[in-house]
Protein backbone atom coordinates (compact mmCIF):
# COMPACT_ATOMS: atom_id res chain seq x y z
CA UNK A 1 0.00 0.00 0.00
CA UNK A 2 1.27 3.44 -0.83
CA UNK A 3 2.19 5.98 1.82
CA UNK A 4 -0.08 8.64 3.26
CA UNK A 5 1.00 12.10 2.17
CA UNK A 6 -1.60 14.48 3.60
CA UNK A 7 -1.01 16.74 6.59
CA UNK A 8 -4.41 18.47 6.30
CA UNK A 9 -7.89 17.28 5.42
CA UNK A 10 -9.60 20.18 3.68
CA UNK A 11 -11.79 18.58 1.03
CA UNK A 12 -12.59 15.01 0.18
CA UNK A 13 -11.47 15.67 -3.39
CA UNK A 14 -7.90 16.02 -2.09
CA UNK A 15 -7.97 12.28 -1.41
CA UNK A 16 -7.41 9.59 -4.02
CA UNK A 17 -9.31 6.30 -4.14
CA UNK A 18 -6.35 4.60 -2.43
CA UNK A 19 -6.38 7.25 0.31
CA UNK A 20 -10.09 6.67 0.96
CA UNK A 21 -9.52 2.92 1.07
CA UNK A 22 -6.71 3.48 3.56
CA UNK A 23 -9.01 5.56 5.79
CA UNK A 24 -11.70 2.85 5.70
CA UNK A 25 -9.16 0.12 6.47
CA UNK A 26 -7.64 2.12 9.35
CA UNK A 27 -11.06 3.03 10.77
CA UNK A 28 -11.90 -0.66 10.96
CA UNK A 29 -9.06 -1.15 13.45
CA UNK A 30 -10.12 1.91 15.43
CA UNK A 31 -13.71 0.74 15.72
CA UNK A 32 -12.45 -2.11 17.86
CA UNK A 33 -10.69 0.33 20.21
CA UNK A 34 -14.02 2.03 21.02
CA UNK A 35 -15.53 -1.35 21.97
CA UNK A 36 -12.90 -1.99 24.63
CA UNK A 37 -13.35 -1.52 28.33
CA UNK A 38 -10.41 0.89 28.29
CA UNK A 39 -11.15 2.99 25.21
CA UNK A 40 -7.83 4.73 24.96
CA UNK A 41 -4.60 4.07 23.13
CA UNK A 42 -1.40 6.10 23.57
CA UNK A 43 -0.79 6.86 19.88
CA UNK A 44 -1.06 10.68 20.05
CA UNK A 45 0.19 11.21 23.60
CA UNK A 46 1.44 14.75 24.11
CA UNK A 47 -0.28 16.19 21.02
CA UNK A 48 -2.71 19.08 21.31
CA UNK A 49 -5.84 19.33 19.19
CA UNK A 50 -7.85 22.56 19.12
CA UNK A 51 -11.46 22.70 18.00
CA UNK A 52 -12.55 25.98 16.54
CA UNK A 53 -16.27 25.80 15.84
CA UNK A 54 -18.12 28.90 14.80
CA UNK A 55 -21.34 27.11 13.93
CA UNK A 56 -23.48 25.01 16.26
CA UNK A 57 -22.54 21.33 16.34
CA UNK A 58 -23.12 18.45 18.70
CA UNK A 59 -22.28 15.30 16.78
CA UNK A 60 -19.22 16.43 14.87
CA UNK A 61 -17.63 18.30 17.76
CA UNK A 62 -18.18 15.53 20.31
CA UNK A 63 -17.11 12.94 17.78
CA UNK A 64 -13.82 14.72 17.07
CA UNK A 65 -13.24 15.35 20.75
CA UNK A 66 -13.79 11.69 21.66
CA UNK A 67 -11.63 10.59 18.74
CA UNK A 68 -8.74 12.80 19.86
CA UNK A 69 -9.13 11.79 23.52
CA UNK A 70 -9.24 8.08 22.70
CA UNK A 71 -5.89 8.59 20.95
CA UNK A 72 -4.56 10.27 24.14
CA UNK A 73 -4.27 13.75 22.58
CA UNK A 74 -5.22 16.78 24.66
CA UNK A 75 -8.19 18.67 23.32
CA UNK A 76 -9.58 22.11 23.83
CA UNK A 77 -12.64 23.86 22.55
CA UNK A 78 -12.78 27.45 21.47
CA UNK A 79 -16.34 28.65 21.80
CA UNK A 80 -16.51 31.41 19.28
CA UNK A 81 -19.40 33.24 20.96
CA UNK A 82 -17.25 33.61 24.10
CA UNK A 83 -13.96 34.35 22.33
CA UNK A 84 -12.04 37.48 21.40
CA UNK A 85 -13.71 37.41 17.96
CA UNK A 86 -16.50 39.23 19.76
CA UNK A 87 -14.03 42.05 20.48
CA UNK A 88 -13.27 42.41 16.80
CA UNK A 89 -10.26 40.14 16.39
CA UNK A 90 -10.14 38.41 13.01
CA UNK A 91 -10.41 34.65 12.82
CA UNK A 92 -6.93 34.44 11.32
CA UNK A 93 -5.40 36.51 14.12
CA UNK A 94 -7.09 34.35 16.68
CA UNK A 95 -5.87 31.20 14.93
CA UNK A 96 -2.32 32.58 14.82
CA UNK A 97 -2.49 33.23 18.55
CA UNK A 98 -3.59 29.66 19.12
CA UNK A 99 -0.76 28.48 16.86
CA UNK A 100 1.69 30.52 18.96
CA UNK A 101 0.82 28.27 21.90
CA UNK A 102 2.26 25.33 19.95
CA UNK A 103 -0.79 23.29 19.16
CA UNK A 104 -0.50 20.44 16.67
CA UNK A 105 -3.87 20.24 14.92
CA UNK A 106 -6.76 22.63 14.37
CA UNK A 107 -10.23 21.32 13.59
CA UNK A 108 -12.38 24.06 12.13
CA UNK A 109 -16.03 24.55 11.28
CA UNK A 110 -17.12 27.82 9.75
CA UNK A 111 -20.13 29.19 7.95
CA UNK A 112 -17.97 30.51 5.10
CA UNK A 113 -16.60 28.16 2.49
CA UNK A 114 -12.81 28.25 2.17
CA UNK A 115 -11.92 29.14 5.77
CA UNK A 116 -10.11 25.81 6.38
CA UNK A 117 -8.03 26.39 3.24
CA UNK A 118 -6.97 29.84 4.45
CA UNK A 119 -6.00 28.51 7.87
CA UNK A 120 -4.07 25.61 6.31
CA UNK A 121 -2.15 28.01 4.08
CA UNK A 122 -1.29 30.43 6.87
CA UNK A 123 -0.63 28.10 9.80
CA UNK A 124 1.89 25.41 10.63
CA UNK A 125 -0.38 22.98 12.51
CA UNK A 126 -2.48 20.54 10.48
CA UNK A 127 -6.03 21.63 9.67
CA UNK A 128 -9.12 19.44 9.47
CA UNK A 129 -12.27 20.78 7.85
CA UNK A 130 -15.26 19.92 10.04
CA UNK A 131 -17.65 21.63 7.64
CA UNK A 132 -17.28 24.92 5.75
CA UNK A 133 -20.44 26.65 4.57
CA UNK A 134 -22.24 24.69 1.88
CA UNK A 135 -19.00 23.43 0.42
CA UNK A 136 -17.41 20.46 2.09
CA UNK A 137 -17.68 18.10 5.04
CA UNK A 138 -15.07 15.46 4.33
CA UNK A 139 -15.20 13.44 7.56
CA UNK A 140 -18.98 13.03 7.27
CA UNK A 141 -18.59 11.61 3.76
CA UNK A 142 -15.80 9.30 4.93
CA UNK A 143 -17.92 7.94 7.77
CA UNK A 144 -20.81 7.44 5.36
CA UNK A 145 -18.53 5.53 2.98
CA UNK A 146 -17.20 3.46 5.89
CA UNK A 147 -20.75 2.64 7.02
CA UNK A 148 -21.80 1.56 3.51
CA UNK A 149 -18.65 -0.53 3.06
CA UNK A 150 -19.13 -2.19 6.44
CA UNK A 151 -22.83 -2.91 5.96
CA UNK A 152 -22.87 -3.92 2.30
CA UNK A 153 -19.27 -5.13 1.87
CA UNK A 154 -18.64 -2.88 -1.11
CA UNK A 155 -19.30 0.58 -2.56
CA UNK A 156 -18.39 -0.14 -6.17
CA UNK A 157 -21.50 -0.65 -8.31
CA UNK A 158 -24.04 0.35 -5.66
CA UNK A 159 -26.94 2.66 -6.45
CA UNK A 160 -27.14 5.52 -4.00
CA UNK A 161 -29.96 8.06 -3.84
CA UNK A 162 -29.32 11.41 -2.16
CA UNK A 163 -32.62 13.07 -1.29
CA UNK A 164 -33.48 16.60 -0.27
CA UNK A 165 -31.77 19.96 -0.02
CA UNK A 166 -28.65 19.26 -2.08
CA UNK A 167 -28.13 22.97 -2.77
CA UNK A 168 -27.22 23.85 0.81
CA UNK A 169 -25.63 20.53 1.69
CA UNK A 170 -21.90 20.23 2.20
CA UNK A 171 -22.57 16.62 3.21
CA UNK A 172 -24.04 15.95 -0.23
CA UNK A 173 -21.15 17.65 -2.06
CA UNK A 174 -18.52 15.61 -0.25
CA UNK A 175 -20.52 12.41 -0.59
CA UNK A 176 -21.06 12.88 -4.31
CA UNK A 177 -17.31 13.08 -4.81
CA UNK A 178 -16.55 10.13 -2.54
CA UNK A 179 -19.28 7.82 -3.82
CA UNK A 180 -18.40 8.40 -7.47
CA UNK A 181 -14.69 7.98 -6.72
CA UNK A 182 -15.45 4.62 -5.11
CA UNK A 183 -17.52 3.48 -8.07
CA UNK A 184 -21.10 4.02 -6.90
CA UNK A 185 -23.89 5.35 -9.12
CA UNK A 186 -25.42 8.46 -7.57
CA UNK A 187 -28.90 9.87 -8.19
CA UNK A 188 -29.99 13.15 -6.64
CA UNK A 189 -33.62 13.80 -5.86
CA UNK A 190 -35.28 16.94 -4.54
CA UNK A 191 -37.31 20.00 -5.47
CA UNK A 192 -35.80 21.70 -8.51
CA UNK A 193 -35.08 24.83 -6.47
CA UNK A 194 -32.83 22.82 -4.14
CA UNK A 195 -30.84 20.92 -6.79
CA UNK A 196 -27.81 22.92 -7.94
CA UNK A 197 -27.92 23.71 -11.70
CA UNK A 198 -25.61 21.67 -13.91
CA UNK A 199 -24.77 19.27 -11.09
CA UNK A 200 -25.03 16.45 -13.68
CA UNK A 201 -21.58 17.50 -14.83
CA UNK A 202 -20.18 15.81 -11.74
CA UNK A 203 -21.42 12.48 -13.01
CA UNK A 204 -24.71 12.18 -11.13
CA UNK A 205 -28.27 11.65 -12.33
CA UNK A 206 -31.06 13.96 -11.23
CA UNK A 207 -34.72 13.17 -10.76
CA UNK A 208 -37.55 15.20 -9.30
CA UNK A 209 -39.67 12.13 -8.52
CA UNK A 210 -39.00 10.34 -5.27
CA UNK A 211 -40.37 6.97 -6.48
CA UNK A 212 -37.78 6.87 -9.29
CA UNK A 213 -34.88 6.99 -6.86
CA UNK A 214 -36.46 4.78 -4.18
CA UNK A 215 -37.26 1.90 -6.54
CA UNK A 216 -33.78 0.50 -7.22
CA UNK A 217 -31.52 2.15 -4.63
CA UNK A 218 -29.21 0.16 -2.37
CA UNK A 219 -28.71 3.20 -0.15
CA UNK A 220 -30.97 6.19 0.47
CA UNK A 221 -29.26 9.18 2.01
CA UNK A 222 -31.70 11.75 3.36
CA UNK A 223 -30.42 15.28 3.82
CA UNK A 224 -31.57 17.60 6.55
CA UNK A 225 -33.89 20.32 5.36
CA UNK A 226 -31.83 23.30 6.51
CA UNK A 227 -34.54 25.51 7.87
CA UNK A 228 -31.97 28.09 8.95
CA UNK A 229 -31.00 28.52 5.29
CA UNK A 230 -34.58 28.83 4.01
CA UNK A 231 -35.02 32.59 4.33
CA UNK A 232 -35.34 32.88 0.59
CA UNK A 233 -38.35 31.09 -0.76
CA UNK A 234 -37.03 27.82 -2.04
CA UNK A 235 -40.16 25.94 -1.06
CA UNK A 236 -43.87 26.78 -1.16
CA UNK A 237 -44.27 25.12 2.22
CA UNK A 238 -42.69 22.50 4.43
CA UNK A 239 -45.85 20.42 4.11
CA UNK A 240 -45.55 20.31 0.36
CA UNK A 241 -41.92 19.23 0.70
CA UNK A 242 -42.90 16.44 3.09
CA UNK A 243 -45.59 15.20 0.70
CA UNK A 244 -43.25 15.09 -2.26
CA UNK A 245 -39.86 14.16 -0.76
CA UNK A 246 -40.35 13.08 2.86
CA UNK A 247 -39.54 9.37 3.18
CA UNK A 248 -42.28 7.31 4.82
CA UNK A 249 -42.95 3.62 5.31
CA UNK A 250 -45.61 3.83 2.61
CA UNK A 251 -43.23 5.32 0.03
CA UNK A 252 -40.55 2.80 0.96
CA UNK A 253 -42.79 -0.15 0.02
CA UNK A 254 -41.43 -0.27 -3.51
CA UNK A 255 -37.79 -0.13 -2.33
CA UNK A 256 -35.42 -3.08 -1.93
CA UNK A 257 -36.28 -4.71 1.42
CA UNK A 258 -32.73 -4.31 2.77
CA UNK A 259 -32.14 -0.75 1.54
CA UNK A 260 -29.93 1.29 3.91
CA UNK A 261 -31.42 4.53 5.18
CA UNK A 262 -28.82 7.10 6.16
CA UNK A 263 -29.00 10.61 7.51
CA UNK A 264 -26.14 12.87 8.60
CA UNK A 265 -28.16 14.28 11.51
CA UNK A 266 -29.70 16.14 13.13
CA UNK A 267 -32.96 14.60 11.89
CA UNK A 268 -36.09 16.70 11.48
CA UNK A 269 -38.47 13.89 12.39
CA UNK A 270 -41.49 13.85 10.14
CA UNK A 271 -39.86 16.05 7.50
CA UNK A 272 -37.00 14.27 5.70
CA UNK A 273 -38.12 10.95 7.00
CA UNK A 274 -40.78 9.64 9.32
CA UNK A 275 -39.95 8.77 12.91
CA UNK A 276 -40.94 5.19 12.16
CA UNK A 277 -38.24 4.91 9.49
CA UNK A 278 -35.61 6.80 11.48
CA UNK A 279 -35.94 4.17 14.22
CA UNK A 280 -36.65 1.23 11.89
CA UNK A 281 -34.58 -1.78 10.83
CA UNK A 282 -33.30 -0.16 7.63
CA UNK A 283 -31.94 2.87 9.45
CA UNK A 284 -28.20 3.02 10.15
CA UNK A 285 -28.35 6.57 11.49
CA UNK A 286 -26.92 5.77 14.93
CA UNK A 287 -24.36 3.42 13.43
CA UNK A 288 -23.15 6.35 11.34
CA UNK A 289 -22.57 8.21 14.61
CA UNK A 290 -20.68 5.27 16.13
CA UNK A 291 -18.55 4.94 13.00
CA UNK A 292 -17.89 8.68 13.00
CA UNK A 293 -15.62 8.33 16.03
CA UNK A 294 -13.64 5.49 14.43
CA UNK A 295 -13.26 7.36 11.14
CA UNK A 296 -12.12 10.56 12.87
CA UNK A 297 -9.61 8.56 14.92
CA UNK A 298 -8.30 7.16 11.65
CA UNK A 299 -8.04 10.64 10.12
CA UNK A 300 -6.21 12.08 13.13
CA UNK A 301 -3.88 9.09 13.24
CA UNK A 302 -3.08 9.28 9.53
CA UNK A 303 -2.62 13.07 9.46
CA UNK A 304 -0.31 12.98 12.46
CA UNK A 305 1.69 10.21 10.80
CA UNK A 306 2.62 12.66 8.08
CA UNK A 307 5.37 14.55 9.84
CA UNK A 308 5.99 17.72 7.95
CA UNK A 309 3.29 19.65 6.23
CA UNK A 310 3.94 20.43 2.61
CA UNK A 311 4.57 24.14 2.29
Amino acid sequence: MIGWKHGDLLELSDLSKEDIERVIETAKAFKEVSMRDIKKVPALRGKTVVMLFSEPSTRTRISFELAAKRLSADTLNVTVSASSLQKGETLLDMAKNIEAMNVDMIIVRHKSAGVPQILARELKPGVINAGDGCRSHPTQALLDLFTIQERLGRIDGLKVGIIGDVLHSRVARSNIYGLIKMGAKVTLCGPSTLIPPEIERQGVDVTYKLNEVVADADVLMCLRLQKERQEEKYLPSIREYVNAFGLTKEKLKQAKPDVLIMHPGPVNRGIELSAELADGVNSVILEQVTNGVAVRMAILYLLFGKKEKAS
Partner: protein
Amino acid sequence: MTNSSKMMDQETVRRALMRLAHEILEKNKGIEEICLVGIRTGGAVLAKRLQQCIKDIEGVEVPLGILDITLYRDDLTTAHTQPILRETLIPFDLTGQKVILVDDVLFTGRTIRAALDALIDFGRPANIQLAVLIDRGHRELPIRADYVGKNIPTSIDDDVCVILKEANHNEDEVIVKKRGAQ
Protein backbone atom coordinates in the same frame (compact mmCIF):
# COMPACT_ATOMS: atom_id res chain seq x y z
CA MET B 1 31.79 -15.20 4.68
CA THR B 2 28.54 -15.12 2.75
CA ASN B 3 26.06 -12.33 3.20
CA SER B 4 23.17 -14.59 4.02
CA SER B 5 22.86 -17.85 5.96
CA LYS B 6 19.95 -20.16 6.62
CA MET B 7 19.58 -20.85 10.33
CA MET B 8 16.37 -22.92 10.41
CA ASP B 9 14.24 -24.84 7.93
CA GLN B 10 10.74 -26.33 7.85
CA GLU B 11 11.63 -29.26 10.07
CA THR B 12 13.65 -27.37 12.69
CA VAL B 13 10.90 -24.72 12.99
CA ARG B 14 8.34 -27.48 13.51
CA ARG B 15 10.42 -29.21 16.19
CA ALA B 16 11.16 -25.92 17.95
CA LEU B 17 7.46 -25.02 18.12
CA MET B 18 6.56 -28.49 19.39
CA ARG B 19 9.20 -28.17 22.12
CA LEU B 20 7.89 -24.69 23.03
CA ALA B 21 4.38 -26.15 23.36
CA HIS B 22 5.69 -28.87 25.70
CA GLU B 23 7.62 -26.32 27.76
CA ILE B 24 4.56 -24.07 28.08
CA LEU B 25 2.46 -27.00 29.27
CA GLU B 26 5.14 -28.23 31.64
CA LYS B 27 5.74 -24.86 33.26
CA ASN B 28 2.02 -24.11 33.62
CA LYS B 29 1.16 -27.68 34.67
CA GLY B 30 -1.39 -28.12 31.90
CA ILE B 31 -3.67 -25.85 29.97
CA GLU B 32 -5.75 -24.44 32.80
CA GLU B 33 -6.46 -20.72 32.18
CA ILE B 34 -3.86 -20.48 29.44
CA CYS B 35 -4.41 -18.32 26.38
CA LEU B 36 -2.18 -17.39 23.45
CA VAL B 37 -1.82 -13.90 22.04
CA GLY B 38 0.27 -13.44 18.90
CA ILE B 39 1.76 -10.12 17.82
CA ARG B 40 0.91 -9.23 14.22
CA THR B 41 1.99 -10.49 11.80
CA GLY B 42 4.66 -13.16 12.38
CA GLY B 43 3.73 -13.79 16.01
CA ALA B 44 0.08 -14.25 15.10
CA VAL B 45 0.96 -17.05 12.68
CA LEU B 46 3.22 -18.75 15.23
CA ALA B 47 0.59 -18.44 17.97
CA LYS B 48 -1.89 -20.22 15.72
CA ARG B 49 0.62 -23.03 15.16
CA LEU B 50 1.33 -23.26 18.88
CA GLN B 51 -2.41 -23.55 19.47
CA GLN B 52 -2.44 -26.56 17.12
CA CYS B 53 0.65 -28.09 18.82
CA ILE B 54 -1.05 -27.77 22.21
CA LYS B 55 -4.20 -29.33 20.77
CA ASP B 56 -2.14 -32.25 19.40
CA ILE B 57 -0.68 -32.85 22.85
CA GLU B 58 -3.63 -32.15 25.16
CA GLY B 59 -6.60 -32.45 22.81
CA VAL B 60 -7.92 -29.04 23.81
CA GLU B 61 -7.99 -25.78 21.88
CA VAL B 62 -6.77 -22.89 24.03
CA PRO B 63 -8.11 -19.36 23.28
CA LEU B 64 -6.14 -17.43 20.67
CA GLY B 65 -5.90 -13.67 20.21
CA ILE B 66 -4.15 -11.37 17.75
CA LEU B 67 -2.57 -8.14 18.88
CA ASP B 68 -1.63 -5.13 16.73
CA ILE B 69 0.84 -3.02 18.71
CA THR B 70 1.09 -0.13 16.23
CA LEU B 71 -0.76 2.36 18.44
CA TYR B 72 1.54 1.59 21.38
CA ARG B 73 4.85 2.05 19.57
CA ASP B 74 7.31 4.60 20.91
CA ASP B 75 8.42 5.64 17.42
CA LEU B 76 4.99 6.34 15.92
CA THR B 77 5.65 9.95 15.00
CA THR B 78 9.36 9.52 14.27
CA ALA B 79 9.27 6.39 12.09
CA HIS B 80 9.96 6.97 8.41
CA THR B 81 6.85 5.34 7.03
CA GLN B 82 3.70 4.99 8.99
CA PRO B 83 2.84 1.38 9.66
CA ILE B 84 -0.53 0.17 8.44
CA LEU B 85 -2.89 -0.34 11.31
CA ARG B 86 -4.72 -3.66 11.54
CA GLU B 87 -7.37 -4.94 13.88
CA THR B 88 -6.66 -6.34 17.30
CA LEU B 89 -8.80 -9.42 17.90
CA ILE B 90 -8.88 -10.67 21.46
CA PRO B 91 -12.33 -12.27 21.74
CA PHE B 92 -12.03 -13.28 25.40
CA ASP B 93 -11.39 -11.67 28.78
CA LEU B 94 -7.72 -11.63 29.79
CA THR B 95 -8.43 -10.99 33.45
CA GLY B 96 -7.06 -13.84 35.57
CA GLN B 97 -5.63 -15.64 32.52
CA LYS B 98 -2.07 -16.80 32.00
CA VAL B 99 -1.25 -15.03 28.76
CA ILE B 100 1.42 -16.52 26.52
CA LEU B 101 2.56 -13.63 24.33
CA VAL B 102 4.04 -14.92 21.07
CA ASP B 103 6.39 -13.15 18.67
CA ASP B 104 8.74 -14.31 15.93
CA VAL B 105 11.97 -12.44 16.77
CA LEU B 106 13.02 -10.90 20.08
CA PHE B 107 15.45 -8.05 19.39
CA THR B 108 15.48 -4.68 21.20
CA GLY B 109 12.46 -5.57 23.35
CA ARG B 110 10.56 -2.44 22.32
CA THR B 111 7.83 -4.39 20.54
CA ILE B 112 7.29 -6.47 23.66
CA ARG B 113 7.16 -3.33 25.82
CA ALA B 114 4.42 -1.99 23.54
CA ALA B 115 2.59 -5.34 23.60
CA LEU B 116 2.65 -5.41 27.42
CA ASP B 117 1.06 -1.96 27.57
CA ALA B 118 -1.56 -3.02 25.04
CA LEU B 119 -2.40 -6.27 26.86
CA ILE B 120 -2.87 -4.50 30.16
CA ASP B 121 -5.48 -2.23 28.53
CA PHE B 122 -7.50 -5.38 27.87
CA GLY B 123 -7.63 -6.59 31.46
CA ARG B 124 -5.50 -7.81 34.32
CA PRO B 125 -3.91 -11.15 33.41
CA ALA B 126 -2.70 -13.44 36.22
CA ASN B 127 0.66 -13.34 34.46
CA ILE B 128 2.17 -12.73 31.05
CA GLN B 129 4.81 -15.09 29.64
CA LEU B 130 6.80 -14.54 26.49
CA ALA B 131 7.44 -17.15 23.79
CA VAL B 132 9.61 -16.32 20.76
CA LEU B 133 10.91 -18.38 17.89
CA ILE B 134 14.22 -16.50 17.72
CA ASP B 135 16.15 -14.54 20.33
CA ARG B 136 18.80 -12.53 18.51
CA GLY B 137 20.12 -10.45 21.43
CA HIS B 138 20.78 -6.67 21.54
CA ARG B 139 18.13 -5.81 24.11
CA GLU B 140 17.48 -2.11 24.83
CA LEU B 141 14.99 -2.78 27.63
CA PRO B 142 15.00 -5.15 30.63
CA ILE B 143 12.91 -7.82 28.90
CA ARG B 144 13.57 -11.57 28.44
CA ALA B 145 11.71 -14.50 26.93
CA ASP B 146 10.35 -17.42 28.98
CA TYR B 147 10.41 -19.77 25.98
CA VAL B 148 12.93 -19.53 23.14
CA GLY B 149 12.88 -21.61 19.95
CA LYS B 150 16.48 -20.80 19.05
CA ASN B 151 19.11 -18.36 20.24
CA ILE B 152 20.94 -16.83 17.29
CA PRO B 153 23.89 -14.54 18.03
CA THR B 154 23.80 -11.66 15.55
CA SER B 155 25.55 -8.44 14.81
CA ILE B 156 23.48 -5.28 15.34
CA ASP B 157 23.35 -4.59 11.59
CA ASP B 158 22.11 -8.07 10.65
CA ASP B 159 18.53 -8.66 9.56
CA VAL B 160 16.77 -11.76 10.82
CA CYS B 161 14.00 -12.90 8.46
CA VAL B 162 11.42 -15.38 9.63
CA ILE B 163 9.67 -16.61 6.49
CA LEU B 164 6.50 -18.59 7.15
CA LYS B 165 4.37 -20.68 4.82
CA GLU B 166 1.20 -18.82 5.83
CA ALA B 167 2.57 -15.69 4.14
CA ASN B 168 2.62 -17.40 0.73
CA HIS B 169 6.03 -19.07 0.86
CA ASN B 170 6.92 -22.59 -0.15
CA GLU B 171 8.40 -23.51 3.17
CA ASP B 172 9.43 -22.07 6.52
CA GLU B 173 12.89 -20.56 6.75
CA VAL B 174 14.89 -18.43 9.13
CA ILE B 175 17.62 -16.46 7.42
CA VAL B 176 20.23 -14.08 8.82
CA LYS B 177 21.68 -11.58 6.38
CA LYS B 178 23.69 -8.41 6.37
CA ARG B 179 21.42 -5.38 6.20
CA GLY B 180 20.89 -4.32 2.61
CA ALA B 181 21.97 -7.72 1.18
CA GLN B 182 19.67 -9.54 -1.23
